[in-house]
């Protein structure tokens, strides 16, 4: 495949998968700005390795996994900065803009963010990216049974969290 065709192929993949990947990463990390940065970086890496990624059975899963790994790398870089307090750089991070915040349902997002990280990742891959249990297990490097257990616990916790609030909303 020539470079021009590769670009068209990648652009088509980006158009079809980018939104879902972003939503999956958002559900996992909870912050829109962070999710956008991680997904942009993951897609850039996908393009850098497009010959390989394009043959991946689930390239969108590759992107999400890469984004989540990039998040861990970022965390690892950040921890190195602990002993170098730089007042200029310790300023409060920019607040999420109102328009950006309104893109997600805050009630549901808050409930999702109360889940443990692994359960959020399972929710992201199974429910948002719509991967099956086996692929989710492969992406996360855990057993399929563990995926099902995490999903079950996450669903139970979300139901427990959201039902009372939704009932209250309905009453008012």
């Amino acid at each position, binding site marked *: 495949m020539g470079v021009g065709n590769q*670009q068209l192929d*990648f*652009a088509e993949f*980006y*158009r079809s998968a*980018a*939104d879902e990947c*972003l*939503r999956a990463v*958002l*559900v996992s*990390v909870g912050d*829109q700005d*962070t999710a*956008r940065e991680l997904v*942009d*970086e993951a*897609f*850039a*890496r*996908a*393009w*850098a390795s*497009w010959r390989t990624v394009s043959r991946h059975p689930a390239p969108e899963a590759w992107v999400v996994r890469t984004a989540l790994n990039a*998040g*861990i790398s*970022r*965390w*690892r870089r*950040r*921890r*190195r*900065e*602990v*002993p*170098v*307090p730089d007042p200029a*750089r*310790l300023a409060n*991070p920019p607040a999420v803009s109102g328009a950006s915040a309104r*893109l*997600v*349902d805050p009630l*549901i*997002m808050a409930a*999702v963010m109360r889940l*443990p*990280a*692994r359960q959020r990742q399972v*929710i992201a891959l199974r*429910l*948002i990216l719509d991967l099956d249990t086996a692929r989710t297990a492969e992406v996360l*490097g*855990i057993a399929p049974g563990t995926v099902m257990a995490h999903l079950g616990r996450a*669903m139970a916790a*979300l*139901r427990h969290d*959201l*039902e009372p609030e*939704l009932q209250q909303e309905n009453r008012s």
Partner: protein
Amino acid sequence: MNDNELITMVRESVADVHTVTPVAQVISRGRAVRARRRIPGVAGTLAVAAGTALAVTTLLPSGHQGLLGSGHPGRHPASAQLAAWTVARQVNGDIDVTIHQLQDPAGLQRTLRADGLPVTVSFSGSPLSASCQPYDTGRDILSAVAHFHTSDGSAYLVINPSALPSGTGVSIFDEPGARVPLPSPHTPRHGQGSGSTAPAGITGPLAVALVYASQQCTG
């Protein structure tokens, strides 16, 4: 609320979120990633530069396990001291960790946990086991929990457990592969460790970060 309703609700909660980055920008960034891969030396050089500039790293020789020494007088009775590291609980609740050699991480982890700190320690170059999940936080919180300084080839880490966000613990680990120039062999001040041994298997900078606390990860 059945499962389908719940799944729909979760999906719809983020349905309005869309990417805004043009594909051309992604491709451009991808080209830069690809170009960077072709010059591996550049990444290595940057890592060394960062490690040096931040002045937060310490390179500790990997030698034999030191012998047991005596505890610091006047400190917490639970304080333990080895040639490789010492732990002391201060009256204000802070935990002082002095690391001379990257040895016996399990012992250090056990000692810190016995002092009530949810912690995972790894000197094997693998900062996160599968059971640990990173807790991404701002540096202000991280700085309140822990800070390093280095002196005479040893790392001094002060941990304030009361500053830990709820449900989190501490991860202490080394960062191998930074390839920072090695210091001269270090002789431990306590015990009779073999710090004068050539530092084969040298590890990289020592680091600390936060993780989600769990039985499997932080005890």
